[in-house]
């Protein structure tokens, strides 16, 4: 057995070092850790049951106070607890949907790039068409007509509509790497297609995949929030960051601002952290990443 030829990506240690040298990346990671821990362990941190309506007469629409740091909603539910539990749902939806997208996008791009020829050009034409479909409109159409969908179906459908741009990038990278020496030599050594794809090419296209994953999670969080705000996303009473804000509209926001403000801030902080992380990862992973 001959040792595998060395790959062009920076080692794990280098990536970690570069990331840690980036102060905003460190802050983003720390923030994400805090948010993920708070939401994942929501039952531990949430002061109240997020769905219970303890006192619908005296406990509703209370502004932020020591008892209810984020206030209460029109049904006396504690907004902080709802934000924590909502994050659980929103984050896991975003993570799983992104995972679906990443898997599909990578597979499609890699196959297209590696296959070449007619297969590739057909696959890329299909991709062009898919890329031109406005994602939000199609998702609205799907969820408005199939209005009894569960969170699982929601996740899969969101994931199924989010892989196009990644597969284009992956295909580009695969094309570039296909001709490189270490792939040639692996092929010369008699390695099969699948083996070459999995062992030699995939590790080299990890960069765009990881970056796309980080940015994708942020994007899906925004998408879920938007769809739920429009009333076609995740359905109440189970809170998600989007549907907590669902019922707050124009005139109400002037009086019960906390209902929109806090879940919104949770979304923004999380999405920002993922975006910073995505940017930082790109810089740390890209060999030519000389951007400041």
């Amino acid at each position, binding site marked *: 057995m001959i040792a595998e030829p060395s790959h062009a990506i920076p080692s794990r240690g280098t990536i970690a070092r570069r990331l840690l040298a980036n102060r905003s990346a460190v802050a983003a990671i720390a923030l994400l850790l805090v948010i993920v821990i708070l939401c994942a362990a929501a039952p531990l941190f949430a002061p109240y049951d997020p769905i219970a309506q303890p006192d619908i*007469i005296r406990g509703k629409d209370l502004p932020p106070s020591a008892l209810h740091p984020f206030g209460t909603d029109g*049904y006396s539910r504690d907004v902080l607890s709802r934000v924590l539990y909502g994050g659980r749902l929103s984050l896991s939806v975003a993570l799983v949907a992104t995972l679906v997208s990443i898997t599909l996008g990578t597979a499609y791009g890699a196959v297209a790039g590696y296959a070449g020829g007619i297969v590739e050009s057909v696959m890329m034409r299909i991709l062009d068409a898919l890329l031109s479909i406005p994602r939000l409109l199609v998702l609205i159409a799907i969820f408005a007509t199939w209005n009894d969908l569960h969170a699982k179906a929601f996740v899969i459908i969101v994931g199924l509509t989010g892989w196009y741009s990644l597969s284009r990038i992956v295909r580009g990278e695969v094309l570039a790497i296909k001709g490189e020496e270490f792939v040639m030599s692996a092929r010369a050594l008699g390695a099969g297609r699948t083996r070459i794809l999995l062992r030699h090419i995939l590790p080299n296209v990890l960069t765009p995949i990881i970056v796309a994953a980080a940015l994708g999670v942020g994007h899906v969080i925004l998408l879920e929030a938007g769809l739920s705000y429009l009333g076609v996303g995740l359905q*109440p009473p189970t809170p998600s960051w989007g549907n907590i804000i669902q019922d707050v509209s124009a005139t109400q926001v002037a009086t019960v601002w906390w209902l929109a403000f806090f879940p919104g801030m949770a979304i923004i902080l999380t999405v920002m952290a993922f975006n910073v992380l995505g940017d930082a990862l790109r810089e740390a992973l890209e060999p030519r990443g000389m951007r400041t």
Partner: protein
Amino acid sequence: MRQLAALAAILLTAIACEGGNKPSLGDAAATPGGTLVIASAGEPDVLFPPLTATITGRQITELVYDHLADLGNSLNTVGDADFKPHLAKSWAWSPDSLSIQFHLDPAAKWHDGVPVRASDVAFTYAIYKDTANASPLAPLIADIDSVTAPDSLTAVFWFNKRSPLQFFEATNPMVIIPEHALHGIRGQTLRTAPFARAPIGSGRYRFVEWNPGSSVEIAADRANYLGRPNLNRVIWTIAPDPNVAFTRLIGGEADFLEQLTPPELSQLATHNDIRVVLLPGLEYNFIQFNLRDPKNAARPHDVLGDRGVRRALTMAVDRSRIVQSVYDSLAAPALGPTVRAYPTTDTTLQEIPYSPDDARRLLDSLGWRVTGADSIRRRNGHPLEFTLTVPGSSKNRVNMAVIIQDQLKQVGAKLNIDKLDYAAFITRETQRKFDAMMGGWHVDASPAGIRQTWGSAGARAGGSNYGSYTNAAFDAQVDSALSSMTLDDRRARFKRAYQTIIDDAPAIWLAEPKSAVAINHRIHTPALRPDSWWSSIGEWWVPPAERIARDSVNPRR
């Protein structure tokens, strides 16, 4: 607490100015003008009076069309003492009281110039009555046997039997529609006929235009036989979102908004240009169960067809707390399918008491048990789950739905909420494609409407008893109450009828809201009639000194 105190203060002032303004001499009549913009949360369904099922539709049609006679603000529906002539200048009873002759105003003309004739009255009755047209109002005129037109200005109403409500029945449910404008259209196609969306009436306002989803405009009929009304135009601006309607009111884009919510009332306290008028409640709302399978009306509903289940669900809902939470002091828990303002309503009715424990026990005994980890009851594998259809345009009803969803969960019943636009909600309702719906009835001055809304007569297709509740005993009790001649006896008989329907639980009776309306100070009104504030719009006015830009706009066409 402070919010509550503030609200109480608003309510006091509101009651204080309920009397309306008095026109100062001459200023209104001298210079007609003004535009009234009503912010409406719901689009009218159809502007054809026999088929109109929406309150907005009723408001518009009752201004464009005329009643034979108008009920006074006293709301005394017995006999004819408190009625004022309208399209009929006068009337006379037959000696046996089984018929009434109405003499039409000879000057009355339709908006297209054709004179109003007695044959139109007979035609109107035929349209309302004909089962092929499926008018939801048909049960309200059940005691009228026929209408004849011996000459062009005399219409005679013949009754099956004597009752205290004969005159009311002849004049209140129907407005007179023009025979010549309908071109012989009948049955199913009436609803979609062009005339049903562009009415030609004889009222003091004529129809101008309807922009679906945005507005309906009517304008003063300058040549009207009852005199030109003061306001030039009345416009309903339709906002699918109740918040938008409220925004239009406080932004000055609209002058009038009804069904105010408590938060809106407290917000209005800071707006000096808007006054609030409280009218006694002539409205009650409820969760109506569909007793028939929405997919196949021949079968009972698989969950809600069972009286025991409906009673258990009712026990699980804490109505008085819900009403207090959502309406504050603006509503009382509903007693049943009636309102307290009726002298015939006995307030000592036996409600199904709130008791989640009893609800659980009852469901257990009916075979609905919690088996899985999701704590939803099941019977033979079928979950205790149903969908509540709610009009998204009513914030109050949406709020109640969300609270009830939580309370039903406590006893192991799963409620899904389906929010729809008002028009789509009405469609589901009238087509009976729902499990349960968050409904409400704005009642008219007489308790007789219950035949239409909860009696067997309204249960067939086209009727307004959308849940298809039928109970022969209840029908008989209502009939006996309606034909009783003394108030005490009627109250006692109605009590029996109400008790029957409450015990059968075809609905969870929720709130009986007081009607709080907000009016821009510019708009001056006489005292408003409690069951229909719009009936006096012909008398409303804007003094020239207070007019704004839109008041001097002349109507199109």
